[in-house]
């Protein structure tokens, strides 16, 4: 059996590592424009032009309890993986802080899998994903008593269809406030 201490440290470490990785944001510059511009400039009497980094847009995540369409409550996963992708760490930690701020808040983490492979194994995979998200919620202040995990495996696809794109939308954990 895992000790509760291990249980808390691993996600907390993951949170720190991924947060550092997440800061290393690349400027939003289209590769095609950047390479064509100097070539065109070379014909015009020796003058050369260069580009500066775009200011870019910083997108915060909104995770309010209300059903606002822009609040992020779905965490997506890679095939056969329950590892939380770096891009979702800020989202989950924001949910964790919300749980920490009010012990009356309850969430259900619904784990899901894509339709490939065996059904009951997919239920287990969906649970493992939800448990990963729970670990991060606990790591950012949520309490165990506030979180319930249920896995539907492949039984409740978000998108119906047999394509990589449909499958990627079905491998997910939905955070539902009760």
């Amino acid at each position, binding site marked *: *059996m*895992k000790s509760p201490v291990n249980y808390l440290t691993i996600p907390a470490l993951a949170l720190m590592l991924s947060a550092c990785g997440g800061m290393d944001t690349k400027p939003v510059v289209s590769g095609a424009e950047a390479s064509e511009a100097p070539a065109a400039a070379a014909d015009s009497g020796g003058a050369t032009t260069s580009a500066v980094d775009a200011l870019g847009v910083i997108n915060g995540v909104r995770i309010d309890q209300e059903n606002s369409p822009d609040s992020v409550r779905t965490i997506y996963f890679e095939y056969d993986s329950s590892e939380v992708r770096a891009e979702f760490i800020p989202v989950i930690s924001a949910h964790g802080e919300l749980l920490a701020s009010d012990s009356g808040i309850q969430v*259900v983490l619904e784990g899901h899998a894509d*339709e*490939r*492979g*065996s*059904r*009951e*194994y997919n*239920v*287990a*995979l969906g*649970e*493992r994903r939800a*448990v990963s998200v729970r670990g991060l919620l606990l790591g950012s202040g949520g309490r165990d008593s506030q979180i*319930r*995990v*249920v*896995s*539907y*495996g492949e*039984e*409740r696809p978000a998108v*119906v*269809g*047999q394509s990589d794109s449909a499958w990627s939308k079905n491998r997910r954990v939905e955070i539902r406030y009760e």
Partner: protein
Amino acid sequence: MRKLTVVLTLGMLLSVSLASFASRLTIEITQGTRATTPVAVVPFGWQGTGPKPPDDIGRIIEENLKRSGRFTALGRQDMLSRPTSGAGINFRNWKLLNVDYLVVGKVQETAHDEYVVQVQLINVLSEKPLAGFGYPANRKTFRRLANHITDVIYEKLTGERGIFNTRMAYVTSTGGKSPTYHLYVADSDGRNAQSIVRSGEPMMSPAWSPDGQKLAYVSFENRRSQIYIQNILTGQRERISGFKGINGAPAWSPDGRRLALTLSHRGNPDIYTFDINTRSFSQLTTNTAIDTEPEWSPDGSHILFTSDRGGKPQLYTIPAFGGRAMRITYEGDYNAGGVYSPDGKYIAMVHGRDKSYRIALLEADTGHLQILTNGILDESPSFAPNGRILLYATAGGGIGVLSAVSIDGRYQQRLASPDGDVREPAWSPYNQ
């Protein structure tokens, strides 16, 4: 003894019923075998003054035999005569039509809704009757009787027990965004489908009790997984497991006294057994990996299960009362959902390779693995009780359909529902 709650819910979202929904599976033979025995099932004679029988017994027998993949049947339009008993048969004509065996019979009305059905199976080459029987019948029992007669004929001609008087259970999902789920029980030919549970939440993993009278299944009706056992003859059911986390993959022991199942309330999915009489659970696996999809070996000594303890899902066995787990699959990086053939000689499973998930058959003695199907999303294999045919779920034109394949891979048929997605077929044991 701790008493568990007996739940009998009749609500808006869920109702348990024996009502017949007009739903029916349609059957299409998609691949035939080469070595078939030619038979002719002559239309049955009729003697009576009341209403004619509701079912054409001869036609049902003929369709059953064709569907088994082992027989071809002479078309009625090609028959030069239509005898209804073994007397006075012109064997020369049947030999010219290359018929090896002849099925003849008649239905006689004896009283209001009482009939006697006479049948003979005749060997055309030896010109001798192989079997003859008489059965009582009424309007309600004709179809069942026709299936029974097919079983007798099939066993006489192949030496193997027939499976025409068995059933199958399966799950359907209909209605797009907020689907309705049904657990159905149908005859093995897809007819006579009856919904035994309807729910607004998913249902999974139907498993037949060895006496064919009960089904264990998983229901998410309270937005969590729970395992129920339902008597299919009375519609009554009982919740046997509703722990925190996963309650999944129920499987009956061959003696019907225990269930193997998956529970995750101690942190991760492990295999447990549940004693139906004492209501006690015992934990069989204690691994930190995923352990799920238990199935009992036919002799009850071992439990087969899926585990990713080696990194990827593979099949393992463990003694049913505890011990060391042993890995049994090594080919490919995805083997899951294993089931034993009734004689224990084979294990069918979902075998993933090159982005396709197909049904494969592992020969227990040799370790030889044979891929039987050619879909990309094949799953949920279930053996017919005679071990000859595997029923499984596949994707056909975007929705789930059922398929059947003979274990030599030579014969395939497809069963589709006009209503929507069909999945998780479970073939019943022999009728008892």
